[in-house]
């Protein structure tokens, strides 16, 4: 078997693929965080719980009503996004004028409540969700075996990330978001309904998290605690990429997934720590992050 640096290519490629997939999830989640942070200046600690809600909704809707994967792909983000709009409207808006540390604590509390209630109902052992038949199997690329579903996750996640970037950078609605990020009060002075824009933006960021949750349902263990661990890593990704940078969130997400994958091959013990190591180094050298604007 061919080897690179004493490692079989198949092993290397396999870990790389896993890395890219993890990276796709990091990218989707940190993208949502970046969108929310940009306009609301809120560090959304509820993001992991809302990602979990997307996955759990998918499983529960299938078990209870037989809602299939494709419908869930649209329906779950819409439902969870609506939950997000409610959270913004009834909770975050009331403390929007306070120091942002309060909204951080509030979203953290919301996450704990959602997680706690659902743990009570569903436990933590993980629910089964079988992937649609069309994704069974995979294709042999010669040097590795690529499961269809993993390929789909990478493609659709990248498409959604690109679509979001395009919407923010190239459209009229996106120009509202970018301008609102700079000076939302003046935007409102021009006649733009900023409170509505804030609600919708939070809802959209939450939809991205829920969408990642639906994608995760067939391959990760779905349980009420699935978002907690992931969120810490995603925060590290956001810090590395630079708070509020849209492209930075996506590129860094993928990059960190790959770095994690490589580390699993060459030094497995360090795999769970490597992202945080990168974070420390980036913070020391470039405190505003790789893609952040210098303060």
């Amino acid at each position, binding site marked *: 078997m061919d080897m690179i640096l004493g490692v079989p290519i198949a092993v290397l490629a396999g870990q790389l693929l896993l890395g890219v997939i993890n990276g796709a999830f990091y990218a989707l989640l940190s993208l949502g965080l970046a969108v929310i942070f940009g306009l609301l200046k809120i560090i959304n600690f509820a993001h992991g719980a809302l990602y979990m809600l997307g996955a759990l909704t998918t499983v529960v809707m299938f078990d209870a009503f037989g809602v299939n994967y494709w419908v869930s792909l649209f329906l779950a983000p819409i439902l969870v996004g609506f939950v997000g709009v409610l959270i913004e409207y009834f909770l975050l808006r009331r403390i929007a004028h306070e120091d942002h540390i309060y909204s951080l604590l509030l979203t953290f509390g919301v996450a704990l409540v959602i997680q706690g209630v659902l743990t009570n109902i569903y436990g933590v052992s993980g629910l089964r969700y079988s992937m649609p038949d069309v994704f069974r199997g995979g294709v042999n690329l010669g040097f590795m075996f690529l499961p269809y579903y993993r390929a789909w996750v990478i493609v659709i996640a990248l498409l959604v990330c690109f679509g979001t970037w395009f919407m923010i950078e190239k459209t*009229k609605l996106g*120009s*509202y978001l*970018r*301008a609102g*990020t*700079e*000076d939302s*009060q*003046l*935007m*409102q*002075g*021009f*006649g*733009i*309904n*900023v*409170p509505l824009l804030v609600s919708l933006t939070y809802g959209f960021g939450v939809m991205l998290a829920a969408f990642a949750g639906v994608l995760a349902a067939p391959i990760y263990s779905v349980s009420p605690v699935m978002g907690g661990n992931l969120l810490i890593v995603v925060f590290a990704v956001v810090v590395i990429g630079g708070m509020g940078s849209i492209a930075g969130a996506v590129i860094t997400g993928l990059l960190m997934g790959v770095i994690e994958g490589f580390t699993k091959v060459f030094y497995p013990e360090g795999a769970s720590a490597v992202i945080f190591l990168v974070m420390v180094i980036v913070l020391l050298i470039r405190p505003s992050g790789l893609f952040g604007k210098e303060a």
Partner: protein
Amino acid sequence: MSNPVDREYEQLRISGLHAFYGESHILHGINIVVRRGELVTLLGRNGAGRSTTLKAIMNMVGKRTGSIMINGTDTLSCAPHQIARLGVGYCPEHRGIFASLNVQENLTLPPVVRSGGMGLEEIYNMFPNLYERRFSQGSKLSGGEQQMLAMARILRTGANMLLLDEITEGLAPVIVQKLGEVLMKLKAKGLTIILVEQNFHFAAPLADRHYVMEHGQIVEEISADELEAKQSLLNNYLGV
């Protein structure tokens, strides 16, 4: 704008306005009336409350009491975006050009609030520099270009009452002169303009009336034809 301007129509009536930033009480019972098509200045030294008056009209300060009628509607309980939609165009002192948007995006950002605004072509004719730089990022503009853009941006929306805060501040004389020409054109079109201005020589030939502010109050109202007679009083207030 083709309708004849009813110059008796009260576009803005501020009565007994108090405004606060947190605990600090900035405006102490202001009364101002501006009729349609008038160009009125707010003069005074720094910190007299002129910019705060404009912000208070836009509901961009903390607490406000009193009354602010725009076109006969009391706006004290209106959100800023609702006030803008009554036909008010606000140009802040810091100009508020969005650095991450290019010139054209900045220009087309504010939604149209009334019919009768200027088209892009008309605006580019008025400000040829902006046309040349229409794809430049807001952050790349000179101070003069930023100010032109900040003005142009509210002309497209059809706003018929403009609140302009220190538009000549820190600009080269040739640009100040250009802004003066623009204001004359807008006045001829029948727009109502409230101008906060440090540069009295810029404001004097343009304005119909002047309100002089001190310590958050209106201390003097001077019409254009009284200006000569009250010049020394005014100099006293402005500290020149």
